[in-house]
């Protein structure tokens, strides 16, 4: 599936205590092969807000926008034409692919399975009892990106970075990420498992450097007070709730996505969903069965008639 080799580097000196076994295993890899198509799907899923307010683009946007920008080489690299793109667009690509590829790495290697946007997580799990320090949209006071449950139900946090300038620029960005992670604090201590800053360097076509995924541990563990005032069960519920909202949003089920993204865990209210979403879900299931039948028959859609299928799917 369009695999690309990317160097993997772990800053082992950033761990003050002994290196956790899964981090040590990651550090020993040296490089990893990741699918571009999966990375772009993750990018679409991870960057979408859990709540739908009509701001999102069609959910295949990441693939449509960024797949043509990548070379057909074995390593991850931008095409030569990309160097002439406006700097603003370059920054957006770096940010978005930085989220997609680093999340892909952490899901595969550290078993991060269920992932929630930190801001929404805090909002649904602790209304009125906890808040981020005055947070900004960028810079050192920006709040961390995500909270994740791993295979063993442990809570982890991570911050994503991305650049296409150089490895050195990535390290600078990650240094700023360490300060961002320390921005999420509470009034007591932490039982968080991993607290990471991870970044992607994706080189321009002419760069002599290879693509790199870099992982580092911050010097301070956040969430201390926060994890004392919220039970592990409530944290788990909130993370699942927000991740589910993103999945339902990706399916076009706006009502349940919004209901999940706003629901306060401590009150355990029922979900109020618009009736017509049930019908929409039924149609989606039918479409999936239909596409499965087509694939089993090995009919190519181009032979079948794309227009007919698209019109049918949109009914």
């Amino acid at each position: 599936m369009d695999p690309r080799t990317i160097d993997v580097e772990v800053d082992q000196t950033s761990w003050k205590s002994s290196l956790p076994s899964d981090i040590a295993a990651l550090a020993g890899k040296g490089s990893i092969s990741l699918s571009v198509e999966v990375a772009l799907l993750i990018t679409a899923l991870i960057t979408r807000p859990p709540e739908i307010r009509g701001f999102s683009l069609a959910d295949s946007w990441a693939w449509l926008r960024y797949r043509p920008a990548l070379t057909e080489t074995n390593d991850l690299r931008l095409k030569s034409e990309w160097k002439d793109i406006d700097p603003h667009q370059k920054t957006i690509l770096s940010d978005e692919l930085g989220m997609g590829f680093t999340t892909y790495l952490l899901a595969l290697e550290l078993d991060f399975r269920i992932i929630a946007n930190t801001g929404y997580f805090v909002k649904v799990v602790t209304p009125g009892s906890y808040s981020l320090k005055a947070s900004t949209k960028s810079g050192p006071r920006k709040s961390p990106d995500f909270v994740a449950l791993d295979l063993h139900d442990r809570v982890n946090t991570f911050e994503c970075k991305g650049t296409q300038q150089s490895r050195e620029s990535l390290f600078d960005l990650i240094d700023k990420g360490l300060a961002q992670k320390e921005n999420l604090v509470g009034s007591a201590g932490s039982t968080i498992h991993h607290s990471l800053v991870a970044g992607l360097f994706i080189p321009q076509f002419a760069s002599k450097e290879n693509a790199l995924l870099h992982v580092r541990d911050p010097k301070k563990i956040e969430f201390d007070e926060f994890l004392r005032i919220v039970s592990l069960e409530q944290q788990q519920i909130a993370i699942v709730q927000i991740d589910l909202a993103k999945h339902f949003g990706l399916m076009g089920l706006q009502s349940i996505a919004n209901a999940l993204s706003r629901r306060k865990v401590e009150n355990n209210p029922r979900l109020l969903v618009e009736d017509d979403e049930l019908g929409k879900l039924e149609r989606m299931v039918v479409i999936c069965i239909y596409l499965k039948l087509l694939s089993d028959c090995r009919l190519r859609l181009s032979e079948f008639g794309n227009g007919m299928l698209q019109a049918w799917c949109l009914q």
Partner: protein
Amino acid sequence: MVFTMSCPKEFYFRLISSGDVNTELLNFAAQAKHQRWLIHERDWETSLTTPLGFNLSLNYLTR
């Protein structure tokens, strides 16, 4: 390209009809945590299962 996604339909119905949504979410997490990014490939279709157990597929209509 058409982007489709499916989910356990029964879970959806349970979630919206349950008086105890928290328990439904925890039960779902217990089932979903063993999922990984599972990938199935065909010549014109790619599908994968996310860590939450949702199946996503990309169908390349133009290929």
